[in-house]
């Protein structure tokens, strides 16, 4: 330990804050004060009146003095020793920003944070929010969606009134699960573009397309699809999907946006597809429980799912006769918004899938 503080001198450039002229000076420490020696003149400041910039990589350190003027120091080691003499300390942020191991820890923590938010936090948050959406909003969302669909995609149903009533009555006899909150109603439509399908709107209206009714002779199978759609509505899947996909889109746009908007959309689609598959599984489980309550076999849903898959494959092959249909389906599995049908059938009805 040196006893004479003036031993240590650090070169610096001094600017008075009034002109751009630079003056070479020497910094030293004495009794808790900073001493600035410019050859002809000497200035001193108590450390409390000097603002010392934090370390930021190898950038020059700047010592701003109260009342104007500052020093620029490039001798980092020298300044550290000088500051240690007058009692300066490095803080935790300073250490974090300059350590490679902290950088690696940060990379891991960021990946974990992103993955955790994507896997758990976002679905949970969206569910909490979606469950609190007032019924009025759901009604409005449902009716405006149906209006738009009626205008552009859907056509009136070809089923006669008696058949429609028959199906509606069968659906009305289906006991919902005790925690069900909405009133449900079937809306009959047809759509050549969408084929065999049914989908639920947030207000409890379930759109059933003629294609689905034509697909099976067993009305209980249709009831099974409706139970699945009930799951989508009760679990607020439409609302949750809107919330989750907009957050994913926003975060990706913020992260990759600087590079290319195009790059942000591809991962967004893949990431949203996973949410969609999770929701299909949840709706399947909901349907399974509903059917058990009503004394129906979950195999009914498994059976109609198989038929739906065949019908959609046939339509696809029809639309693109040149494409190799088998290969197409395989690639689609990867991105598909529905989990592989075989997997769903296996979960619903182990007996049927083993045949």
């Amino acid at each position: 330990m040196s006893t004479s503080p003036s031993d240590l001198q650090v070169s610096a450039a001094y600017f008075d804050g009034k002109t751009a002229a630079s003056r070479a000076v020497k910094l030293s420490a004495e009794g808790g004060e900073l001493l600035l020696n410019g050859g002809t003149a000497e200035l001193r400041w108590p450390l409390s009146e000097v603002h010392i910039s934090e370390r930021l990589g190898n950038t020059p350190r700047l010592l701003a003095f109260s009342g104007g003027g500052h020093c620029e120091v490039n001798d980092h080691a020298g300044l550290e020793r000088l500051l240690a003499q007058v009692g300066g300390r490095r803080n935790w942020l300073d250490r974090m920003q300059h350590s490679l191991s902290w950088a690696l820890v940060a990379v891991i923590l960021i990946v974990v944070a992103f993955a955790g938010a994507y896997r758990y936090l976002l679905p949970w948050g969206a569910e909490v929010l979606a469950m609190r959406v007032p019924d009025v909003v759901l009604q409005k969302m449902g009716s405006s969606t149906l209006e738009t669909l009626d205008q552009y995609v859907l056509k009136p149903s070809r089923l006669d009134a008696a058949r429609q009533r028959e199906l509606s009555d069968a659906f009305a006899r289906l006991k919902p699960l005790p925690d069900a909150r909405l009133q449900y109603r079937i809306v009959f439509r047809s759509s050549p573009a969408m084929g065999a399908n049914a989908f639920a709107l947030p207000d409890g209206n379930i759109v059933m397309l003629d294609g689905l009714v034509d697909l099976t002779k067993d009305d209980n199978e249709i009831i099974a699809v409706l139970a699945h759609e009930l799951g989508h509505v009760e679990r607020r899947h439409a609302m949750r999907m809107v919330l989750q996909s907009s957050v994913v889109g926003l975060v990706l746009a913020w992260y990759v946006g600087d590079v290319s908007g195009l790059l942000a959309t591809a991962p967004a689609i893949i990431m949203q597809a996973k949410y969609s598959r999770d929701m299909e599984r949840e709706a399947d489980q909901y349907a399974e429980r509903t059917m058990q309550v009503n004394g129906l076999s979950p195999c009914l849903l498994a059976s109609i799912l198989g038929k739906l898959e065949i019908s959609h494959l046939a339509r696809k092959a029809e639309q693109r006769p040149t494409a190799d249909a088998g290969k197409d389906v395989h690639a689609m599995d990867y991105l598909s918004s529905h989990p592989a049908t075989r997997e769903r059938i296996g979960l619903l009805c182990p007996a049927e899938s083993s045949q």
Partner: protein
Amino acid sequence: MQEQFGPQTRNFEFTGKGWEYFRIWIVNLLLTIVTLGIYSAWAKVRRLQYFYRNTRLADASFDYHGTPKAILKGRIIAVGLMLLYNITLKFNPILGLVVGLMLALIMPWLLMRSLRFKLYNSSYRGLRFGFAGQTRGAYDAFMKYPMLAGLTAYLLAPLAHQRIKQYQFDNSRFGSTAFKFGATVKGFYLLYLSALAVMVGTLLLVIALATMSGTGAGLKALATGFVAAAPFVMLIMVASVLIVSSLFSAYMQNMVWGNTAVGTHRISSRVPARRLLWVSVSNFIGVVLTLGLFMPFATIRMLRLKLESMAVTSSGDLSDFVSGQQQQASATGEETAEMFDVDISF
């Protein structure tokens, strides 16, 4: 510093390093996530200070003085305004349009304020930069000319761009010395027309390619061709956008800075366009391959290229600048400085 006679040219130096900045960037990112975005204001100050202090000219560095609190305030206001707009637009489209219109009306004023904040908080050799632009000029540059450009099917877009740059540069000060902007409208038109010509050429090439690979005749050939040649078309379009945008930004920087003087000191800029293209393309690939982790390295490479292409030519040394009125004003009344201490960046 010794006196030098005759004109002397000093190059800008940039001493930032990729690995060094990576550590600052990743810690900033982590803390921003952990604090749900609040830390981003502190992150911005650290980032800018790292860039500014690594920028050196004539053995002295630049510095950034913006305070995180002012930036946070600005960000909260900006987020609030955007939320207000989006929410009203969703539930009452007419009210939403009114809010949007009001936002558009205050935008030039906000831009002027944020230019003032940015320049006032930048310094070199202990002297602050400043911005003397007035509200009227801001509305001309950021509203009148862009609207004229829109009304004339963008025929006047280069003129509008020149007016914006002119407003920014002609009103900038270093200490008490004013910036002088000399880039002409003609220069902007030439640059825009060249870029347009290249883009039109690429489009014609793509159409020709699609027609060749399509089946059938006329529009049907074009449509089927686009589907068949989709990967090629995408590749060509992405490549040409990358090429044109990097060449455009190189020539734009050279023209804008190369025609700027600060007092008697002339600034020059000679960004090599081909090198800029290489840096852009390799940055793009690096960022994609590393899922974004290359971003800080990419930023440093781009800044180094752009800054080290610039120089200042002056007779005598750089000591003849003196501080401006702004500085005396800030010393007398802290409150006035506090008042425009709001940074709203878009």
